[in-house]
């Protein structure tokens, strides 16, 4: 087991899948010569050539559609959309074609495409480079949505996504490419469905995904040290489908739930997880579930406003304490 950075894990998965299957291609802005804005495709143009590692023009909707059309014929494209904010331009192809063609063709056409989409609030990039949009992709039937929180997941989920016959959207985080973690030396495929308990605890469950898992872990440490509250942390790496059984099990364990999301709260991950708790585990609850979300604003530029708009460990601790006080 070697320690590597998140971007290196993604790069390794790319390399191995390109090596394994001649039908795998990568396309996107600056993925070839430049090697990717976050280095996730570095070295691959030299190794596999311009026919398979393709620098595209800045035409998100059509190069995304190109990947989808190629997938109809069994090509397995990994389409990198440089920032999730640009994915709005490709929404027609993703939502109307990738998500729906298998269904509306009565199962004839498959879309084994992967959409790798960095996003999240990095550092003062302003409202049009800081959004999180996973809730939008979760809301449409026909797509799988995963979001890795560790280098191991980033590696294993990408490899599984490439091999899936379904369209898979992978949300990565611009602030996580330098994160370090252990990745198995041998080939590893991470399941595309499910959730993972990343910290044991009996008093409250903190649900997170991607970067918010790390906020939850920090909050759990603070709660343990300062309040002797032991929080369980659940990593919802699969956002579509969400792991109903895993959510039920966690709530049955601690009877208290806090969901942490790096996005505006309306119609979001928190709302959906709360709905599932309501449907699956209502009578297990000792307190009303709480969301810790980003503020309902376009992400501001000023650093103090940006920080105020985002969740963090302190806000999660405060939410847990408020939940207990209201009980």
């Amino acid at each position, binding site marked *: 087991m070697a320690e590597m950075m998140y971007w290196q894990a993604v790069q390794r998965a790319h390399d191995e899948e390109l090596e394994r299957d001649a039908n795998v291609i990568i396309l996107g802005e600056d993925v070839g010569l430049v090697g990717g804005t976050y280095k996730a495709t570095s070295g691959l143009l030299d190794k596999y050539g311009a026919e398979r590692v393709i620098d595209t023009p800045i035409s998100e909707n059509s190069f995304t559609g*190109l990947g989808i059309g190629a*997938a109809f014929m069994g090509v397995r494209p990994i389409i990198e959309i440089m920032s999730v904010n640009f994915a709005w331009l490709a929404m027609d192809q993703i939502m109307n074609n990738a998500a729906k063609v298998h269904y509306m063709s009565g199962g004839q056409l498959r879309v084994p495409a992967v959409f790798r989409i960095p996003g999240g609030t990095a550092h003062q990039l302003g409202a049009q480079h800081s959004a999180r949009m996973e809730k939008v992709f979760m809301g449409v039937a026909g797509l799988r949505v995963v979001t890795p929180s560790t280098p191991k997941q980033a590696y294993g989920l990408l490899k599984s996504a490439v091999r899936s016959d379904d369209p898979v959207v992978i949300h990565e985080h611009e602030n996580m490419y330098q994160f370090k973690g252990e990745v198995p030396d041998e080939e590893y495929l991470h399941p595309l469905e499910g959730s993972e308990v990343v910290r044991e605890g009996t008093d409250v469950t903190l649900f997170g995904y991607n970067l918010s898992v790390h906020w939850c872990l920090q909050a759990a440490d603070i709660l343990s040290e300062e309040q002797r509250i032991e929080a369980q942390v659940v990593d919802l790496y699969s956002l579509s489908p969400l792991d109903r059984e895993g959510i039920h099990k966690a709530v049955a364990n601690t009877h208290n739930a806090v969901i942490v999301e790096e996005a505006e709260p309306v119609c979001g991950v928190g709302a959906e997880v709360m709905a599932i708790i309501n449907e699956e585990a209502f009578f297990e609850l000792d307190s009303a579930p709480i969301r810790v979300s980003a503020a309902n604003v376009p992400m501001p530029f000023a650093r103090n406003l940006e920080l105020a708009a985002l969740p963090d460990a302190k806000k999660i601790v405060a939410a847990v304490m408020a939940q207990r006080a209201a009980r």
Partner: protein
Amino acid sequence: MDTDARKLLLEKMLYARRFEERCFEAYMEREIGGFLHLYVGQEACVFGVMAAARAGEDAVITGYRDHVHGLAVGMDSKLMMAELFGKESGCCHGRGGSMHLFDLQKQFYGGYAIVGAPFALAIGLAKAIQLQKRDQIAICILGDAACNQGTFHESLNMAALWQLPVLFVCENNLYGIGTRIDRSTAVTELIERAKGCGVTGAQADGQDIEAVFEASKVAVEHVRSGQGPYFLELKTYRFRGHSMSDSNVYRDKSEEEQWAGRDPIQILKNRMLESQEITEEEYKSLDKEILDTIENEVVAFARQAPSPDVEDLEKYVLCDTDGDSEQGVNTNG
């Protein structure tokens, strides 16, 4: 074109015309629901193109006015009609409908209801053909109004940049829903816009199937021989409204009458009558045969076919239903 080839095209166009007219009736009788966009008047376009291409082997993709494109690639009209009736026996098991016909066996990659979206999918098909060294070309058949979407410019740029084996056929019927081309488009000779993206091409009379065929031979040969994409603009006219809900108030009666005089079936039929390749009696008997087939075989099949099972509502949403990615064995053609 010899007599047999002409006869075959006449028969195909007439079959398509009667098929569409029967769809109209079924729609009025509420046996077909949803939207219905008829191809009446434009038949020479797709049959002329597919006569020059390899129908059933070359990859074809189009918009929502797609019934006759399905017929032209060789789809089974019974399965198409059953689809329009929303039946399990339909080509898409009743999940697609009029605007979303698919037939992978015939390399028909579908009808799409978002104007212009297939441009991007078509260059993807062409990319796959290039990458996998397949012995086929991609043919993308869309209307004039689709050329005002961003995907037109984006996709033609990439097609030219990477010399992709794709033939863009533009069926220029002069109207985008109810807006005439000169009210929506600054450069109305669409071939000029294609050239601006670096895609070569030609224009042809879309009402004369032999003119379409000759122009298509050049176009198909260009793409198949590896010279990159090609744009073929066919000047045509739809004799009916955009869809069944169309009030058709936006066209001059005189314009409609003028184009009615350029019916592609009548043009070919008259040419064959003149050269004595067919008689009026033969034509009438062919027509009756077609009408009988459509009524007694096609509509009868669709009518008696079972509806989809409600238990199967969620079938086809995802392929790997258990999320086991190792199962991912691609069966795409």
